[in-house]
């Protein structure tokens, strides 16, 4: 390899350079590198309002010095910058308290997973622009009550993730997705409502902007004519999409890292029955079409499905290498890392609730109460340490199973463990959410509602 000191290496070259430098210095190092390009297009009133092209790469370093991890990252992939990053990781490790179970591992082979599909090389800019234009136009023209289509657009991403360590591990995978999203603003009798719809795919040709736009308008218009919600405790049906959002807010309960730091309400309850017998919850990173799928985790550990709750019983926590070593078990392949800038933790991929036996059409039969279709404000109103939540909600009033009217902005409150225990029926049809969850609708015995 030739070149000047400021020459930018590829992420693969940077990984090999860093691991070589670490071996020369006799230090243990893990390198996590990503490279990605993406495009996004937004349209407003029939024209492209915003077009973005992104290209970004960088390496995250994790050095192990006397049982302690030190991190650093750099987006500058010239050799002197990589040398500085290595030095910085080693110095950071000197500050950190040694922890039991710290080790780098040369894991076994990951599953073969095609997350890249046909790729985007044959897709023209014009085709991408047309998706954004069609979404906006279809939504705007679908109903006279649509006053504006302020949010929406097309986006795609083509990325590569590499992991390597001085134990000899060296692996990577490529992933691609194309998606679109649209949220029309609708107005009637002084009421404004907005609800979005979206589509995520690994094949550009599968995108259907017309359908997505029509769905978004239908969902938004359905919220018009809302009445105040009564305050009280009512039976409720929670849509699969909403349940997925709710459970993803509380996924940290199943993290062994949260358990060992005293931040999970499930600590010490492995083997206990904590939910209804109708609840079986799995985290599966190996779904080819899952939003959060991956062949291996942030440490390079092979991905595999993990059953967290089996018929209501807590069967496993999610582990990375270190939490597993301390708990005397094996990593479940749930090391997470929010990009090369972030630190290694523990996190879920695609959370799935197994479908039940109640036909989707019957899940709300006979219910007088609330049909909950959305929650917001989870970053502040959901408390993973305790399971408590109090959230802005969207939904409809049910009278003997029939939807009578949408509800004005209201709140729902409770504890996620009570909610899992109170599940009385599970629908047979999963719904996918933008959080990567796949869950059927459920009926719960009681939900606390704050309204007028």
């Amino acid at each position: 390899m030739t070149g000047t000191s400021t020459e930018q290496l590829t992420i693969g070259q940077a990984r090999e350079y860093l691991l070589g430098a670490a071996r020369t210095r006799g230090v243990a190092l893990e390198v996590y590198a990503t490279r990605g390009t993406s495009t996004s297009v937004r349209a407003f009133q029939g024209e492209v309002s915003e077009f973005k092209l992104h290209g970004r790469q960088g390496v995250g370093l994790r050095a192990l010095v006397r049982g302690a991890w030190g991190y650093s990252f750099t987006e500058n992939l010239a050799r002197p910058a990589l040398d500085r990053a290595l030095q910085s990781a080693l110095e950071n490790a000197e500050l950190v308290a040694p922890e039991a179970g710290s080790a780098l591992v040369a894991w076994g082979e990951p599953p073969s997973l095609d997350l890249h599909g046909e790729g985007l090389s044959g897709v023209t800019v014009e085709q991408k622009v047309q998706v954004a234009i069609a979404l906006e136009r279809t939504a705007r023209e679908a109903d006279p009550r649509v006053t504006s289509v302020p949010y929406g657009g097309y986006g795609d991403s083509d990325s590569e993730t590499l992991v390597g360590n001085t134990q000899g591990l060296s692996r990577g995978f490529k992933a691609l997705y194309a998606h679109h999203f649209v949220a029309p603003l609708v107005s009637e009798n002084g009421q404004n409502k907005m609800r979005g719809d979206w589509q995520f795919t690994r094949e550009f040709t599968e995108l259907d902007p017309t359908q997505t736009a029509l769905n978004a308008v239908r969902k938004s218009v359905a919220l018009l004519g809302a009445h105040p919600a009564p305050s009280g405790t009512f039976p409720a049906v929670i849509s699969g999409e909403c349940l997925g959002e709710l459970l993803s807010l509380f996924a940290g309960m199943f993290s062994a890292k949260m358990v060992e730091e005293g931040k999970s309400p499930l600590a010490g309850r492995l083997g206990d029955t904590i939910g209804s017998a109708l609840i079986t919850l799995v985290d599966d990173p190996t779904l080819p079409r899952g939003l959060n799928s991956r062949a291996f985790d942030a440490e390079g550990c092979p991905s595999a499905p993990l059953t967290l709750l089996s018929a209501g019983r807590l069967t496993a926590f999610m582990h990375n290498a270190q939490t597993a070593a301390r708990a005397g078990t094996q990593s479940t392949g749930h090391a997470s890392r929010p990009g090369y800038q972030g630190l290694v933790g523990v996190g879920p991929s695609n959370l799935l609730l197994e479908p039940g036996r109640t036909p989707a059409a019957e899940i709300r039969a006979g219910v007088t109460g609330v049909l909950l279709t959305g929650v917001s404000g989870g970053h502040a109103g959901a408390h993973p340490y305790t399971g408590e939540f109090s959230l802005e909600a969207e939904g409809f009033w049910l009278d003997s199973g029939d939807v009578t009217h949408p509800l004005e902005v209201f709140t729902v409150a409770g504890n996620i463990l009570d909610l899992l225990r109170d599940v009385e029926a599970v629908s047979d049809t999963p719904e996918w959410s933008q959080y990567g969850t796949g869950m059927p609708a459920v009926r719960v015995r009681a939900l606390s509602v704050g309204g007028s």
Partner: protein
Amino acid sequence: MLDETMVREVLELARAGGADFAELFVEDTVNTTLRLHQGEVKDAGGGNLFGAGLRLLYGTRVVYAYTNDVTVSGLRDLAGAVASARGAQGEVERSGAGGLDFRRVDVTPLYVAREHPLTAARRDKLALMRRAHGAAAGVGDVRTVDVSYLDRVQRVLIANSEGLWAEDERVQTRLMVSAIAQDGTLRESGHYGPGASRGLEFYDDVTPESVGAEAARIANVMLRAGYAPAGRLPVVIGNAFGGVIFHEACGHILETTAVEKNASVFADKMGRRIAHECVSAVDDGTIPGSWGMVNVDDEGMPAQRTTLIEHGVLRSFMVDRVGALNTGYARTGSGRRQNYTFAPASRMRSTFIDNGTQTPDDLIRSVQHGIYARKMGGGSVTPGTGDYNFAVNEAYMIRGGEIAEPLRGASLVGNGAQDLLNIVGVAGDLRLGQGMCGSVSGSLPTDVGQPHILVSEITVGGRA
């Protein structure tokens, strides 16, 4: 950071496709992140963010691209990609070629850090964290303490085809303590996280001990709190971070990013009464050393103090360059972005309801049955509808004009345009609180703020 010849070449290349305007944003950011868990250093990280973003405007249409290959060839490629991104829609002309003379913006720092984070030793930063830990650990029923430390030094260059050349350094530091109190199976957490655009001398004024003690106090108070009631009630909202109600309920819909798309209920309300006359509100980028301070915004415009609402009447939106083009309102120095990966958008800086004439006691005494929301958590808003929510971290019942028992699990939801009219009392104890605000151009340090206020009626979500 880059030489003028190279910047000129990139901007001219970018304009070769007929754009009306081109802007280059280059940044070199160094940050440090440290975390103590139970007094032990668990995480030590940080690094170097390094890249450039190029924005072209064709009328009001935006083309944006970024790269972290900040070399001559990398930037040439970027400019070429941006110019060609318009594809069949672009008519090529050389209007951008030649004659670009840069005028340096005199960026006067509003505050200069005395103990610069880049020169301070990490061990000194850890010492601050240990002091915070010591003030929270073991206090009352506190069993678990996490202390996070962050500093960030962002150096930026902003140059555009109008000849603007601005360089700035932004220094930020923040300390956050999370305390969990536990008694048997009861568990509750308290958080406190002040920050500033200052060096480590910030902690001479806001001591780490005070940060730790405040998190511990909240956790202990809330541990044995009962559940909040649900329903529509009068609410007195505390000062400082209480201002998140204005931030969520009104601030976001006063940004031209929402206004220009008819996604704001205030879009056609300029000069009209939108709030009770006791409400005046300001978005200010010029408070020296404040968390939301900007010497220049990310479009190179010097900071301003912008009066949004004066005695209930809407006086200004927060306006960035594209917002000005779309709405006709003058720019207010509100173009901000998290980093080079985002195009700028109109965003808040230090946003607060200004002082009124009452006292907090006046407000509380006027409530027979309601809620005192002393410490707010975070919130969010749907800009198109103005429907917002936020969580209350420390709340109490008010009975007969007196603060009574603590309440847990309260959230407040409502509609910004309606609830702004329901602010019926404003005290005179304005303070600011610090938060991170997430929106279209990323996550930004912003101050929220207010004196104590009384909202006549708001939907409280608790256990019904």
